[in-house]
């Protein structure tokens, strides 16, 4: 009998032991781990694309550079957008708008940098990747790693340089978040970019598949931008940050001005320009705009200028971003006629100061143009036969909207202005006319969907973008520029002007190329003939102002103004002035054309740099917060 007990016990125990070994081991081998990302060429390329996906999309309305400055204003319903908060002066340290310091998504810059490090460490393990391809990929990743550091640098100043991925198992006490100095970061970024430029291809071999990926001209152009940033007043001898020190007492910002930085920038810009030319890039000219139907020169130039960024992958684009542009186009487009649904949200709108910024038809600032009726610019007049390609004939609009350079009409839409495209491009006698006064089609549709200023950035809407049958918007996609040739030309002119004692022909050469493309005379001639200050281009300071205004006009609505004003340390001047627009909720002509103050933003010294989120500082006391925050 006793034996039975033993038998039972033995059975029981054998079940236990038999199961113990494998029963709880439920996970099969070969589950996806990080090693799988480098198991073959295809997965490694996915990892490469993952790194690419972190490039901040320039054409996204959540890009604070588009709407966080004084270039665009929104209806009040949009006050909680990150850019709008920054624009109004409501940046906060507890929940920073447009924050890029923290975040754990693959698109967060620091995550992207870690991914670059992982990629560079693991790429040698990938089987079946030929040497040429590997060299190119490594160069792309090195460039992107530098680009992400640079992106953080222009936002935050000193950043934490991550050259290798810190292991996850490190003890907390060994992991510190310590910021490197601005100087160190610039040096690091340039070193990486130089390494990358050597191995990058001049042109993409399979452009139809690969457009958007980094090439030699792209890297060289961005390097020029980095050096321009390093040479500019915000980062070059900015006395405001003299007492901004790290834990060891080192200056986080360079404390003295160094003119050689402009030289380095000029050299880099010229090198980049040469590389671009070598790769066949050139300014997009009137002749490049293809339209099978006869048009007047006026319309043709206007259409070509309008297409200088919206004609996809055109000859001027150095680096375009491949993210969709539907959102920005829908927000930038006025309602052209009575739609039954609401395909366009029509609220991404430039204020009056941007309309005033563009030159007169003589290519000088309207305030300086001796022939321009500057004092009466807010009054109205009726459009005549001579104006008919820009303003609806027989209709009244502000004098400000008459007699302006072609870029004014290619970049801006306004009440009674002409809108070409949207299906009407057969003849320039039959365009759309924008009617924006209260009760008219382009006027307020909903409290969140109208132009609060009376202007729209036509420049961002492609010629063939169309509201079909009044119900749905079909956009013509384009690659939103990160950098383009005109941008680079103006960098070069700016850097040369700073290097030289007084402007010379070299300084004028590249700015004049941009003006010439816009149908304007060169700087010297234009000022000589039309400006109340004809000697302005002859002095370094005067020329600096001219280059700055040219840059703000040419690069409008692309996010450049936002960064340029910071780089030039001018944001404080611009961003403390009231934002104005027409009184768009009125329907009478005179009432509509009354200047209205929309908002009085504030910008203080601390706003030049982003705040690091407060919780990150609390969690990591070794991290030093930016001044003023």
């Amino acid at each position, binding site marked *: *009998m*006793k034996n039975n*007990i033993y038998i039972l016990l033995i059975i*029981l125990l054998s079940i*236990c032991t038999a*199961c*113990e070994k494998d*029963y*709880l*081991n*439920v*996970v099969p081998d070969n*589950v*996806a781990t990080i090693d799988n990302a480098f198991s073959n060429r295809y997965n490694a*390329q*996915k990892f490469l*694309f*993952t790194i*690419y996906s972190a490039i901040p999309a320039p054409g996204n309305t959540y890009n604070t550079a588009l709407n966080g400055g004084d270039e665009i204003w929104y209806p*009040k*319903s949009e*006050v*909680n957008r990150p850019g709008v*908060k920054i624009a*109004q002066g409501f*940046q*906060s340290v*507890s929940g920073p708008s447009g924050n890029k*310091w*923290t*975040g*754990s998504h*693959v698109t967060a810059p620091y*995550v992207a*940098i*870690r*991914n670059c490090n992982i990629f560079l460490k693991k790429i040698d393990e990938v089987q079946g990747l030929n040497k040429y391809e590997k060299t190119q990929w490594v160069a792309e990743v090195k460039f992107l790693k530098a680009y992400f550091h640079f992106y953080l640098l222009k936002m935050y100043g000193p*950043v*934490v340089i*991550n050259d290798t991925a810190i292991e*996850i198992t490190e003890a*907390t006490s060994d*992991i*510190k*978040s310590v910021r490197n100095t601005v100087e160190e970061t610039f040096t690091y970024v340039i070193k990486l970019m130089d390494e990358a430029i050597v191995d990058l291809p001049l042109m993409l071999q399979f452009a139809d*598949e690969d*457009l*958007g990926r980094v090439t030699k001209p792209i890297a060289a152009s961005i390097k020029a931008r980095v050096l321009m940033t390093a040479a500019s007043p915000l980062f070059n001898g900015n006395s405001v940050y003299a007492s901004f020190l790290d834990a060891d007492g080192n200056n986080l910002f360079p404390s003295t001005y160094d003119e050689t930085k402009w030289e380095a920038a000029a050299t880099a810009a010229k090198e980049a320009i040469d590389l671009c030319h070598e790769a066949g890039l050139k300014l997009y000219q009137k002749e490049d705009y293809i339209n099978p139907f006869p048009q007047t020169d006026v319309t043709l130039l206007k259409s070509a200028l309008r297409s200088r960024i919206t004609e*996809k*992958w055109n000859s001027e684009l150095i680096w375009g971003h*491949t993210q969709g542009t539907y959102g920005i186009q829908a927000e930038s487009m006025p309602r052209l006629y009575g739609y039954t649904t*609401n395909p366009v949200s029509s609220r991404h709108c430039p204020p009056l100061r941007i309309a005033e910024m563009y030159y007169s038809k003589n290519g000088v600032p309207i305030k300086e143009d001796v022939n321009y009726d500057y004092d009466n610019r807010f009054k109205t007049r009726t459009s005549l036969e001579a104006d008919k390609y820009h303003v609806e004939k027989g209709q009244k609009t502000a004098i400000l909207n008459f007699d302006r350079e072609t870029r004014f009409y290619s970049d801006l839409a306004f009440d009674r202005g002409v809108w070409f495209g949207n299906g009407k491009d057969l003849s320039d006698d039959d365009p759309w006319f924008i009617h924006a006064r209260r009760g008219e089609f382009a006027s307020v*549709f*909903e409290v969140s969907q109208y132009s609060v200023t009376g202007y729209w950035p036509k420049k961002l809407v492609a010629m063939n973008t169309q509201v079909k049958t009044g119900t749905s918007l079909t956009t013509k996609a384009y690659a939103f520029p990160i950098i383009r040739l005109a941008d680079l030309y103006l960098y070069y002119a700016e850097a040369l002007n700073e290097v030289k004692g007084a402007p010379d022909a070299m300084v004028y050469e590249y700015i004049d190329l941009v003006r010439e493309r816009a149908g304007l005379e060169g700087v010297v001639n234009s000022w000589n003939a039309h400006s109340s200050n004809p000697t302005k281009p002859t002095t370094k300071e005067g020329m600096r102002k001219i280059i700055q205004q040219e840059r703000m006009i040419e690069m409008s609505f692309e996010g450049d103004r936002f960064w340029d004003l910071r780089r030039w340390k001018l944001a404080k001047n611009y961003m403390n002035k009231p934002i104005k627009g027409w009184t768009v*909720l009125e329907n009478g002509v005179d009432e509509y054309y009354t200047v209205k103050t929309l908002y009085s933003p504030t910008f203080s010294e601390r706003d030049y740099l982003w705040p690091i989120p*407060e*919780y*990150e500082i*609390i*969690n990591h006391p070794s991290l030093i917060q930016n001044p003023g925050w």
Partner: protein
Amino acid sequence: MRKLITCLLIFMLGVIHAQAQDKMVKGTIFDETGSPLPGASVVVKGTSKGVSTDFDGLYSIKVKETDILIISFTGYSNKEVAVKGKNTLNVTLKPDVNSLDEVVLVSFGKQKKRAMVSSMTTVKPAELKIASSNLTTALAGKVSGLIAYQRGGEPGRDNAEFFVRGVTTFGYGSSPLILIDGVELEVSDLRRLHPDDIEAFSIMKDAAATALYGARGANGVIYVTTKEGTEGPVSVSARIETSFSAPTQDIELADPITYMRMGNEAVRTRDPLGLLPYSLEKIDNTIAGTNPMLYPTTDWHKELFKDYTTNKRFNFSLNGGGKTARYYVSVAGSQDNGILKVPQLSSFNNNIDFKSYNLRSNTNINLTETSKLKLSFNVNFEDYTGPRQGGSDIYKMAMRSNPVYFKPYYEKDTENEFTNHILFGNYGDGNYLNPYAQMVSGYKEGSNTKVIAQLEFTENLDYLTEGLDFKLVFNATKESFYRVDRFYQPYYYTPRLNKESGVVSLKALNEETGTEYLNFYQKDRYIASSTYLESNISYNKEIDDANEISGQLVFTLNNRLASLTIEESGNLEKSLPYRNMGLAGRFTYANSQKYFAEFNFGYNGSERFAKKERWGFFPSVGLGWLASDENFMKSTKKVISNLKFKASYGLVGNDQIGGPDDRFFYLSKVDLKGAKYYTGENFDNGLRTISIQRYANEQITWETAKKLNIGMELGLFNELDLEVDYFSEQRSNILAGRILPYSMGLQTGVRANIGEAESHGVDGSLVYTTNLGSEAWLQVRGNYTYAKNKITKMEEPDYSATPWLSRIGQPIDQTWGFVAERLFVDQNEVNNSPEQAFGGEYSGGDIKYKDINGDGRISALDRVPIGNPRIPEITYGFGVSSGYKGFDVSCFFQGNANSSFWINTRETAPFINEQQLIKAYADDYWSETNRNVYAMWPRLSDNYVNNNNQTSTWFMQDGAFLRMKSAEIGYTLSDKLLAKMKMEKVRFYASGTNLFVISKFKLWDPELAGKGLEYPNQRVINLGVNISL
């Protein structure tokens, strides 16, 4: 062998002896409420001869005229009755508050109550009867040791939340282990249980009770056993109930005119030049009611919801059997309806209709003298139809719908005479939310089936050595469900006025996108199966009169495999089996029936951890002393009928440290199929991105709880029974996040077993039962649970400068927020106060916060622990029941205390996203003309004001409440009448649930706490009849 023969002999003698008797006595045994008591034993005094009552409490026994019958039943005091010439003897037993010889269920076995050293609470199923088809809603305040509350009343989604002795972890899993007939099941299975089917309902609270469940028992165990058949002829019992249910409280909204006026004010008070949403003309015409088509007002609550709804439930059971086999079979069903309206034009039911059927069959078979087999089947079917969005979202939508833009639908006008669809209202471009259209334009239907089969084989191994038993349990469970959505795209219309003719006609807004046919969309499909195997050897021996020992070893194996729903496809971790195995044991020693000692252990393995962390050992010890049985207490035995002290201490684990898709911490997890990134001329060369979702860590293991329990039981005069336990617990190895800088570029948090927490508290119950005369009785009972926890260790930044930010030393679900002083008087005060840096404008009438650290600005550093934890620290209940002749009345109160909740400012902010205006806000808000700095709602706005949306004391509410949870009045027909009707028992009753509530908070039912805008808890009036044949 010799013993066997003796037994046989005795048995045969008994039969012969019985034949010599001269008389039959019959009767029914009742409990204190007049219900028949099945399974009570009727024994002839001085003999071993006896029978037990059948399911209807009936017995018959052969006796001599001079015999005395002893009637006994566990939980009741014995009663002796003399036969003396009677042929029918009906006896009512009185509950015995301290029947120490009652056998109670403990983990994997049974124990005499006397010998129990662990802390357990057992409630009678009768106490869990409330007018609801969801058992979990009955638990709050009924069971000491359970913190419970209900945050919504939508049929099918009205599970109460409950925690055994509160929560002592800030890791993933804090819910108790649920065992039904010994097998681990889910909360939904507990919900489906019918009180009439329950034999016993227990909660295991301390280490001695739960250590056997090793890696799964740390959060306490809920243990339910279902009824088994009793010997006797077939007996039938039926219960039918109909109930009427309505929300306990509706949120009061402001009238449409006030809505418009304040909506205009909201714009102008922030921007004097702002565009007014409502013209004066519209307001005037709305007041005048000139044309309700053009100037509509809509009470969305009225349009969407009925005043009340009806629910039905029934339960029917059969019970009986003979010497070799006994059965218990029950069928139960319920139909719960939602409170949503259904349009007459509609061809389908969009209201919630939740039908549930349950079939249970327990059969016990005596295979041989020593072998027994139990077969149980439990089959559950649930059919659900309801709105696509779910009832709670419909309630939320009603709060987000403008009351003056359009009607829910319009009557057909001449132009639309032949239109087949409902003409739903809308406005502008037709993109406004019309909750009525959303609600009636579709429905979802689903069906859920769960089948549980269980086989138990018991072998009495006395023939090997006395006291040895062997048991084998096998359980298989299958569950499946599917869900389908069907819907059409509503057509929207807006009225427009022809200015010439003055005729108002309807204009279609979305003729292109609307549809008249139903689309359908296959949602989840799901199949899960689990198996459970248990083998169990137990040994019991009385060594001599004084010493008694027992031992038990249990081996268990658990396996669960579930298919993935459509949304989860590709989730590797969820697709892998869930497994558990363990060896558990219990060794007890009793001396003189007064001193008790116990050692328990669980040795458990879980599939979730790396090999070397996979197994854990969880021991516990317990001691007990029955003081009232000591000789020196003999003199006081009349007064102190029971006095017992007990204590236990031990370890229990918790392997629920991550969710079902976050189980294998020793492996890294990578998503190779992220969003595509495109390159190429036409932006069409896309590759998927790769992201890391978890970093591997081999050292991760389970949480461990060290539990201490000290308890006392006291019985007085055999009428009053008091049980009090003090407990404390230290939880360590809680999986918690490490603090690493973002500049490292990690894609997900890094976790480790670094957290520690502790809790302590008391729970206790008190029962007083007395008979008032011969036909009346009274029972008062109450219970109380207090559990307070705090975090003792976790990784934190250096908070030495701002100690109030530290979570260490604070309750686990403590809320941090700003201290609101009052509202700003004006802009001038704003300018002269510390900057409130939340981003966005604020001015007079917005909330002014206190600068805690005095740095001249209000920031995250100024947040302090505010209020009580969100999970209440106290749950209590008390009730009275009494009866007189056929009548019985009972009522029960339940309350929670020490909890706080916050009104969601985003969801209640009026005007933003067309949100409704709560009347309480309209009655008390800051305005430029009435600058009340203590007004309930700050300055109006048509946009979110970040400053006011911070978690702060301004919107903090006391979550304490006391509610009349239930009341019941019943009448049982008299025996005479029943005899005529040839029935055993008929009882009619009416009951009510959630009848009223006392609380400081008035906007909605305080038990809903922060979920006040969702499907409310229900007040139910219930009529029922209970029949036994």
